[in-house]
């Protein structure tokens, strides 16, 4: 077994071979490799696992291919709401954030909550106020927009109109374009 290393995921669900084009698969694999290399660079230089986790997740958050950061799905109101958490195994220190709408890299704010506050979890406007106080990068919500995710919401809304029960908010979304049955 290796003395050290990094494992990542970019989401699970109904990912169909038929609906995942070779081009798309190549882009996803390239992004995953980029994230792995970012984390590996930290670990190879003797850096802490917390830095490696943060570096890898930032790459995935900045990619439009995953449901986090830049590629986040839309809620019912057409808004991107982001959540994140981080935990240090050696100390059991933890930080978590939820319901963010302007924080470019939520994992960075989760880490600030862990390291710069006495708390474990912050949500919504309060969390974003803490982000401003900490100098964490905020962006216009338009930054998170991707046409693919927007169309995914439109299809979900249309499906919701066609059905009466149970409410679609209780079911995972399904994107027929990518075949990517994404969960939160």
């Amino acid at each position, binding site marked *: 077994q*290796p003395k050290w290393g990094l494992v990542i995921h970019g989401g699970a669900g109904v990912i169909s071979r038929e609906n995942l084009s070779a081009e798309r698969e190549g882009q996803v694999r390239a992004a995953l490799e980029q994230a792995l290399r970012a984390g590996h660079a930290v670990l190879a230089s003797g850096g802490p696992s917390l830095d490696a986790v943060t570096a890898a997740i930032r790459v995935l958050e900045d990619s439009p291919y995953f449901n986090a950061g830049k590629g986040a799905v839309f809620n019912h109101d057409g808004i991107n709401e982001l959540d994140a958490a981080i935990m240090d195994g050696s100390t059991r220190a*933890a930080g978590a954030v939820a319901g963010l709408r302007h924080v470019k890299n939520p994992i960075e704010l989760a880490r600030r909550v862990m390291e710069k506050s006495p708390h474990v979890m912050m949500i*919504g406007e309060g969390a974003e106020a803490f982000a401003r106080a900490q100098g964490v990068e905020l962006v216009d919500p338009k930054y998170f927009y991707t046409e693919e995710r927007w169309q995914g919401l439109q299809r979900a809304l249309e499906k919701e109109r066609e059905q009466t029960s149970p409410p679609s*908010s209780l079911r995972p979304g399904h994107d027929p374009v990518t075949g990517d049955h*994404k969960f939160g």
Partner: protein
Amino acid sequence: TVGAVALDQAGNLAAGTSTGGMTNKRYGRVGDSPIIGAGTYADPRCAVSATGHGEYFIRYTVARDICARVEYQGKSLTEAADVVIHDVLVKAGGEGGVIAMDADGHVAMPFNSTGMYRGYIGDDGAPRVAIFPE
């Protein structure tokens, strides 16, 4: 949802998860990703990041359950993660997967959905990426 777990040269584990949640969610719904012990957890022996149908991962405190089996039952990481994802979660009706590492560098990446975007890199610096159950 995206996530990472890492073991550094000093032997310390960490876990992190980030997500946009669920398409068309309402009422301030929050899934398992930011819930410590559900979608994200790390202790000195074990680190886990999860992705899946969040309500189930919260109810079954999936990430902590895996690490508790390692801590209290002496199970291997692979055994603990497999039981929780392929037995406990499946019986409950929950779909998704986890990535996990232990303090010896063992890796587990079980999932009960048709695919999970995932990857691993060790001290050899060679990235390994997979999507389907290959």
